[in-house]
């Protein structure tokens, strides 16, 4: 029996959350080991598992994979969520990278000094409303299909839903000018694997709080 993938990260979203979403959406069960102390982190390093000394780390198919995008691309390809050819894959990469940029900006605000947080958040919401969300509304409008690429469910759709929900946590009305994204959100949220992941008690993590920030700072010593 094939071992379940094992995720090594803090008990929070950070750079691992998109990986959790992708696995969950693909219906793949996974285990997690949560980093709580500096000692745990140093042990992973000393065991030689962290290629560049960093997490996320995912143990899968006999590999110790690090680097968020490398992990995401591997999973997308493995679970047939990467389009049917090179050109579809290029578009999925383009959309997924854009949404990941946005989500990492949001993840970063938790670590900004208090006096910068508000302006930082405002600028991110501005980017979401004017740079990112309109793009995806237009993509859906132009082809009139249910999914972003190739009329088929892909990694790009999972990332977009994750990003939409993350932005909505900051501004509940953010989709008010984007009717197709609203419909998209409902449609993708209702897919069985995703619906399950959105239930309380799933492995989905909460937004970062001060405790999370403290643990990360303590473990990574910054």
């Amino acid at each position, binding site marked *: 029996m094939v071992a379940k993938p094992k995720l090594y990260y803090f008990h929070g979203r950070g750079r691992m959350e998109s990986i959790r979403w992708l696995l969950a959406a693909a219906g793949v069960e996974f285990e997690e080991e949560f980093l709580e102390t500096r000692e745990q982190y140093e042990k992973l390093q000393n065991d030689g598992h962290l290629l560049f000394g960093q997490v996320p780390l995912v143990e899968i198919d006999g590999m110790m994979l690090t680097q968020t995008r490398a992990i995401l691309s591997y999973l997308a390809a493995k679970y047939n969520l990467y389009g049917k050819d090179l050109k579809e894959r290029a578009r999925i990469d*383009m959309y997924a990278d854009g949404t990941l940029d946005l989500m990492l900006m949001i993840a970063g605000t938790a670590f900004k000094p208090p006096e910068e947080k508000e302006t930082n958040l405002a600028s991110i919401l501005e980017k979401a409303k004017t740079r990112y969300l309109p793009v995806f509304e237009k993509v859906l409008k132009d082809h009139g299909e249910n999914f972003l690429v190739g009329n088929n469910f892909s990694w790009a759709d999972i990332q977009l839903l994750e990003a939409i929900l993350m932005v909505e946590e900051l501004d509940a009305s953010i989709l008010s000018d984007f009717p197709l994204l609203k419909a998209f959100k409902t449609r993708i949220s209702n897919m069985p694997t995703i619906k399950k992941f959105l239930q309380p008690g799933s492995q989905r993590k909460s937004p970062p709080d001060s405790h999370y920030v403290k643990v990360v700072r303590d473990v990574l010593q910054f």
Partner: protein
Amino acid sequence: MAAKPKLHYFNARGRMECIRWLLAAAGEEFEEQFIESPQDLEKLKNDGSLLFQQVPMVEIDGMKLAQTRAILNYIASKHNLYGKDLKERALIDMYSEGIADLSEMILQLPLCPPNERGAKLALIKEKATGRYLPVFEKVLKSHGQDYLVGNKLSKADIHLVELLYYLDEIDSSLLASFALLKALKTRVSNLPNVQKFLQPGSQRKPPLDEKTLEKAKKIFNIK
């Protein structure tokens, strides 16, 4: 006959240089349209050519591709520089991402306020010799092959050699204790396509000078 890829960026390395290296190494000729003024950038935005209002943008095979990684991955796949299977691709991606992280630090250096530059430079050198170069030296040592993954040239080798050239520009002693990396640099530099790209007069861009930096800041509205 298929049109040559067309690169939209300003006339400098920035985030487009790794794409130029990869196309050159793959032997795919390309054209460049340089953004020289804020108006040039506005026009591209208004034409709807820039997916997220950003460059790099590469017109290739009927697509207008944005996002550096998406562009690089497409070119690599197209030219068989992405390994033979998913696992090799994962390794190539992992190595490429590490290289990109260090390259990003070097890319950001000119934008750093002058009083912080010394510290940033020291950090780059420390990360290079302490975190990144040892990893790749070890990979090459562990299998004793000519290239990082699967005994075959891949995008990871090209990105790494490009980075080695930049580290050499920063401080030529950085590579001193990495014999296998030095050998990789020589080996890849001697590949016909790369050798051609390394000649004067190629589309390879020089280090950023003050004048070009000021121009770029104007175009992209950076303070």
